[in-house]
C-alpha cells in the first residue's frame, strides 16, 4: 500500500481522539544545532478543519489493526474497515516533512493493540526514539500510553514524550463492562498513577537541580525530563447513558488523584457498522461544549463539580454553567466589585479571569465604575444583575431568577441545529 493511502486510513482512524494540543512543553530551540524543531509553552494551531477543530499535530495511529473489540471504537476488531500499518520510519518521515513545511508542531501517535500491549508500546516508543535521537527532533511529541504495558515501557515513553495520555473513555465500571469488556478501569488508573509518579519524581529532581545545580553544566547531568507537558485523558460523551454529573465528578477526581493537565470530552460521533445499543445520532456538540465550560470552571475558577451539578443529570444546555450557578445562588449577589474578594468576582457571570485581575489592579488606583466594565469588554448584559460599582446598583436586583433566566437565555446557536 502506498504511503498516501496509509495516511488516509490511519488519520481517519485517529480523529476520534479529541486532543491535539501542543502546549505545555519546555522551551527548546534548534538554533545553531543539528536537528529540527522547537517548542515553547504555547501551542500552535496550524490549521482548522471545517469542524472547527485545531490541527496542531500529525495525529495518526501506527496501525488500526486491533485485538480489542471496544464497541464505541471504529477500529474494534469486528469493524469492517480498511486496515493499514505504518512502519516507524514512515511516521518519522511524515512528521519531519510536515514539520518543515510548518503544517504541524509535532506528532500525536496512538495505536490499536497488536500482538501484545508491550509490543504495541515498544513500537510507539521506537518512533519517538527515532525522532528524538536519530533526527534530534525537538518538536512536540504526544504518545498514547497503553495501560497494560510494562511499567518500564511507560517510564521510557515519558523520557521521549512531552505528553502521555491513557484514555479512560467511559468513566464507570458498568459502562466499561458493557462497551469495552476487555478494558479495566483499574489498569487505566494504575497507568495514570504511574505516569503521575514519573512526573512528580522528575519535578522533584528538577527542583533539587535548581537549588543545587550540579557542578557540570552538561545538561545530561541535570534531572531527566519526564512528560513535561503532563498527562491527559478523554471521556466519550453520549455513547451510553452516563450523565454529566458522573462525568464531571470523575474528571474532578482524575485532576486530583493523578494531577492530569487536561480531561478531554469527546461527543460520540456516529461510526460505520454501529454495534447495537450505540446511538446513530449527531454528536451532542452543545453538551460537550457545556462540559468543557464546567471543566474550565473547576480547573480555573475554584468551583467544585458538586456545586455545578448537585443532583444526578446533565448540565443545562440553554445557559452556561456559571450563569446557571449564579441564578441558583441569588443570595451571593450582587457582588460589590470595589470590595469583594477576587475569587468571588470570578464567580460573576460575564467576568472572566483576566478581567478579574484587571479590576483588582484598577481598584488599587481608583474606584471601579460601570463604564470600566464596558471598557474591559466584559459581557455587560449578562453581568448587569449581579454587580455593584461605585455608580451602579442593579435596579432589577430583586427580580426573580426565573425571569432573569428567561432574559439571559441566549438564542440557540445556529450551528447546533441537527440535520
Amino acid at each position: 500500500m502506498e504511503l498516501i493511502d496509509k495516511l488516509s486510513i490511519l488519520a481517519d482512524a485517529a480523529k476520534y481522539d479529541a486532543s491535539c494540543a501542543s502546549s505545555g512543553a519546555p522551551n527548546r530551540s534548534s538554533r545553531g544545532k543539528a536537528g529540527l524543531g522547537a517548542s515553547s509553552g504555547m501551542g500552535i494551531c496550524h490549521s482548522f478543519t471545517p469542524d472547527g477543530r485545531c490541527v496542531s499535530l500529525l495525529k495518526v495511529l501506527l496501525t488500526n489493526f486491533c485485538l480489542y473489540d471496544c464497541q464505541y471504537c471504529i477500529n474494534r476488531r469486528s469493524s469492517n474497515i480498511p486496515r493499514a500499518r505504518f512502519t516507524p520510519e514512515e511516521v518519522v518521515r511524515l512528521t519531519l516533512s510536515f514539520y518543515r513545511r510548518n503544517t504541524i508542531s509535532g506528532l500525536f501517535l496512538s495505536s490499536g493493540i497488536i500482538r501484545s500491549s508491550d509490543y504495541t508500546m515498544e513500537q510507539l516508543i521506537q518512533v519517538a526514539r527515532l525522532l528524538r535521537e536519530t533526527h534530534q527532533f525537538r518538536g512536540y511529541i504526544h504518545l498514547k500510553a497503553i495501560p497494560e504495558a510494562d511499567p518500564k515501557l511507560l517510564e521510557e515513553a515519558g523520557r521521549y514524550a512531552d505528553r502521555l495520555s491513557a484514555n479512560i473513555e467511559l468513566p464507570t465500571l458498568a459502562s466499561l463492562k458493557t462497551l469495552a469488556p476487555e478494558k479495566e478501569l483499574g489498569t487505566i488508573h494504575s497507568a495514570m498513577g504511574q505516569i503521575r509518579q514519573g512526573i512528580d519524581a522528575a519535578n522533584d529532581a528538577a527542583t533539587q537541580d535548581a537549588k543545587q545545580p550540579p557542578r557540570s553544566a552538561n545538561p545530561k547531568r541535570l534531572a531527566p525530563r519526564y512528560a513535561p507537558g503532563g498527562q491527559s485523558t478523554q471521556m466519550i460523551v453520549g455513547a451510553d447513558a452516563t450523565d454529566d454529573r458522573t462525568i464531571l465528578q470523575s474528571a474532578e477526581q482524575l485532576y486530583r488523584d493523578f494531577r492530569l493537565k487536561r480531561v478531554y470530552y469527546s461527543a460520540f460521533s456516529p461510526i460505520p457498522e454501529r454495534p447495537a445499543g450505540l446511538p446513530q445520532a449527531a454528536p451532542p456538540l452543545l453538551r460537550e461544549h457545556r462540559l468543557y465550560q464546567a471543566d474550565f470552571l473547576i480547573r480555573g475558577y475554584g468551583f467544585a463539580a458538586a456545586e455545578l451539578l448537585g443532583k444526578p443529570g446533565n448540565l443545562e444546555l440553554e445557559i452556561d454553567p456559571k450563569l446557571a450557578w449564579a441564578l441558583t445562588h441569588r443570595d451571593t449577589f450582587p457582588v460589590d466589585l470595589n470590595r469583594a474578594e477576587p475569587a468571588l468576582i470570578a464567580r460573576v457571570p460575564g467576568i472572566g479571569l483576566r478581567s478579574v485581575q484587571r479590576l483588582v489592579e484598577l481598584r488599587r488606583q481608583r474606584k471601579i465604575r460601570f463604564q470600566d466594565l464596558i471598557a474591559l469588554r466584559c459581557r455587560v448584559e449578562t453581568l448587569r444583575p449581579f454587580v455593584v460599582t461605585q455608580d451602579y446598583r442593579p435596579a432589577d436586583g430583586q427580580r426573580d431568577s426565573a425571569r432573569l433566566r428567561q432574559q439571559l437565555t441566549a438564542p440557540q446557536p445556529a450551528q447546533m441545529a441537527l440535520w
Partner: protein
Amino acid sequence: MTPAPSAGAMPWVVPAADFGQWRDAARRLLQAGVPPAAVVWEDTRESQGDLFADTTAGAIRLPEPSVAPAPVRIGREDLALLERASRYRSGDGEQNRWALLYRVMWRLHHGERDATHPADSDGRVLHQRRHAVKREAHHMHAFLRFYRDATDGDEADARGSQDAPGGESLHGRADCLGRKDDRDRENDLGVEESQASFIAWFEPAHDVLDLGAEHFADRLGGNPFLIATPRNGVAWDGQHLDYRTPCPPAWTARARAAQAAGEDSEHALWRTYFVSTFNPARLNHRVMTQHMPQRFWRHLSEGDLIPALEARARHGGRRLAQEASVGERKGKTLPPSRR
C-alpha cells in the same frame, strides 16, 4: 536651547519609521516639555516602499537637548506595551501610532499612571493594538507555509563551504536534490531534507515579520529559509537573519513561484491528512472561520479543500464521522484474539 513652540506657533513635524526612532525623538520632545498637541508625527513606516518616502528623510528638526535633561522614566511593562502596540498598522480613521504613543508617554510622565490601563481611553487602544499584533504574530507562526525552494539545488552547493550549523549532521549533505527518482526521494526524504532550503510568501496585517523570523529560526535550525512579504523580507542562512526593506523582487518572485508550483508530493500528503482528520459529523463553519479567517485560506495548500469538504458534509456526509473515501475501501474484520 530652542524653546517649545508656544500656542499658535508652528508645530514640530517629526517623522519616525520605527520604534527606536520614535523613542529617541519622544525623549527629546518630552525633555523640552513639548505637549502632544504641538507635535505632528509622520509615520514613515506606513509609506515604506513609497517613491516619495524620502522627502521626509533629510535632517529632522527637534528641540535642542537641554544641558542637564531630566531623565524620562517608564516602567518596563509599559515600555513593552508601547513597543508591541507600535507594530499595529492603523486602518482608515484610526490614530497615527506615534501620536498615540507620545500622548501616553506624556500622560505617564505627568503622573497619570492609569494611562496604560485597559480601562483608560488611550490604554484601551494600546491593549487592543497589542492584542491584534500578538494575534497576527500567532497567525504567522500558524498559517505561514514553507515550500521547497526551487533554486535550492544550486545554492546548496554554494553554501556547502560556509560551514552552516548542522553541516556535520548525521545525515550528510543533500547534494542531489531533485535529481533522484521519486521513490528514492520518498524513502529517505527525512535524511535528504535535513539541509534543504525553504521559502514562504506571507501577508501579515501588522509589523510582525521579525517575530515570525525568530520563531522559525528556532524551529528550522540548520534549514535555511526565506520569507517574502509585500513590504519586507528576511533570509535565514542557518546562522543569521538578514532583513531587507523593501523585499527584493527576486525573493518575491521565487516565493510566489514556489507556492504556485504547489511544490512536490509533500503537500499532497498534507492535503490527504487534512481531509482524513476532518470529522464531517461535527461540521462547524462558524468556529473554523473564527479561528482561521478566510484571508489566510489562499496561502494554505489545504485552503481550497475547505469549501468542497463543507459542501460534502452538508449533503449527507454528516451522518458518519468517517471520511467517505476511506469508507469506500475494502474493509477487514479481525478474528477474536487467542490471548
